[in-house]
């Protein structure tokens, strides 16, 4: 990190740390609360006044979660996320290379159109998406959610990949051309490995957005059997909540993205910041 712009005296340091600790607690409180509740037995959850820490730690909610209908939501989320991320990475790596290294007339216009879609609210696409998927029988299928998720993830992914390929010196490409390497081979064996950081960032960002995607899933998967976690769990609202089990499932659903975040935090923050500065 670059050196701090302030020279801090002791007093400043104390109050700045105080404010930041308070903020950290506020931001973490909802997550810690659900985590602790997931280890409480049913009667303890309705205890008034409640105890923040579980009085008797139990795993019964997790056992119930793994045997209940939640497994189906979980499977759908995994299939949709893995399929969507894989397609997004492949397609954005191809397109990013095309935009960065193989310019042609009109290429900037195409890029402009793609970037412009980032400002269009998803709700404008929903009705035509629904009608198209209804016409071809893709409603209530995992594929029916993979395809539109890929489409809406692509514009941002393409920008990242275009920047990664753009950062590779032109001489490397030129010397490979001199060696007689065809364009597919240059892309696969030379350029793609050098754009690795961009690909990692695309994988991470797309995983988050598809894993948590709600709006298209709510629209295109009406049958509970086809729903991912982000929509399926909200069905429990309003009915007699099985709170403990719900807490356990929420913890299981939130854990994968949080773990990925903790592992890759530096990479993600640097990537977003870099994209922000360039964009």
């Amino acid at each position, binding site marked *: 990190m670059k050196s701090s712009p302030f020279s801090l005296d002791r007093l400043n340091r104390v109050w700045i*740390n105080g404010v930041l600790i308070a903020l950290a607690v506020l931001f973490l409180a909802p997550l810690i609360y659900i985590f602790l509740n997931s280890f409480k037995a049913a009667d303890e959850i309705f205890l008034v006044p409640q105890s923040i820490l579980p009085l008797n730690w139990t795993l019964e909610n997790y056992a119930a979660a793994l045997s209940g209908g939640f497994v189906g939501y979980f499977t759908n989320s995994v299939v949709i996320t893995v399929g969507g991320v894989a397609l997004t990475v492949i397609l954005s790596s191809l397109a990013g290379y095309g935009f960065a290294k193989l310019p042609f007339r009109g290429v900037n216009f195409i890029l402009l159109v793609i970037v412009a*879609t980032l400002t269009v609210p998803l709700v404008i696409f929903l009705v035509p998406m629904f009608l198209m998927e209804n016409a071809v029988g893709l409603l209530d299928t995992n594929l029916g959610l993979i395809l539109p998720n890929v489409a809406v993830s692509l514009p941002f992914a393409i920008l990242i990949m275009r920047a990664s390929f753009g950062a590779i010196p032109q001489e490397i490409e030129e010397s490979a051309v001199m060696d007689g390497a065809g364009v597919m081979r240059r892309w696969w064996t030379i350029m793609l490995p050098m754009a690795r950081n961009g690909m990692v960032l695309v994988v991470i960002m797309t995983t988050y957005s598809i894993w948590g995607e709600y709006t298209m899933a709510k629209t295109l998967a009406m049958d509970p059997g086809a729903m991912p976690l982000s929509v399926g769990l909200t069905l429990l609202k309003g009915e007699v909540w099985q709170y403990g089990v719900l807490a356990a499932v929420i913890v299981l659903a939130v854990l994968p993205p949080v773990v990925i975040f903790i592992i890759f*935090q530096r990479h993600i923050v640097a990537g977003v910041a870099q994209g*922000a500065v360039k964009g």
Partner: protein
Amino acid sequence: MPTGFFFILPAFLFIFVFMLYPIVSSGYMSLTEYNFVYDEAPTFIGIDNYVAAFQDDKFVTALTNTFVFGISFFVIVMLSSLCIALLLFQKLRFNSFYRSAIFVPIVVPLSLAALIFLWILQPNYGLLSHVVGDVLGWHALNQPWLANGTIAMIAIVILASWASIGFVTILFLAGLQGISTETLEAAEMDGAAGFKKVLHIILPSLRETYVLTGTWTIIHALKVFVEPMVMTDGGPGTSTLVLYQQVYLTAFTYFDMGYASAMAYILGAIILVLVVVNFAVSRIKADKDV
């Protein structure tokens, strides 16, 4: 055809089928009457849907609520993110812990965060009632929180801000890191320090960052949907019904596809206008200073 075209084509097809074609298609549909359940095909009716929208009480309520939400969200997210970024832009021992804590809500699926907040706001056994009643002793204040329209709106703003501040803070931190060391050192030589330095040197240097964070926050403010869908269903009454949600309900509960498309287009137009205004204002300010 040039080689580059074939590299772009597969991605472009996805974007075309699921985004570009739908933009055109719903643009046309917004000029038609088309009930998905009753009508065989859309009937062209010109701009009637747009006229009808502004005479529709629910649309006007939803539009008003969207702006109430949007302005509160914009002010809170921009100010807190900027302040938090300034605090985090220091050498502090626990800096990376603070960062993790503030950034982590970004990766929590929003609909699940809404469920957690819903639980926190449950009367009697929710966390908020516990803190207000048992910890602070203000039992008289305790109530079914979401039954009150104003509190419900505040809750949605807080949830949305909780989920967004981390990301905008990252953007501001990137902006701060982009300020050249020379600028900061020169300011120090002139005797500017602490608050004065922030006000006169740092804040004016972040102009490009304001465009970026402002655009992002405007788009997200007006696209609010998941929070009221999961937490309040637009209620109590219509006090948290937002535009996005009204479009969704019109299309997929009443299946009035034509009218829904017109309202979606109005929302899209509002976003576009505000993004352009935000961009223009930042540009004009930049030109004046040069």
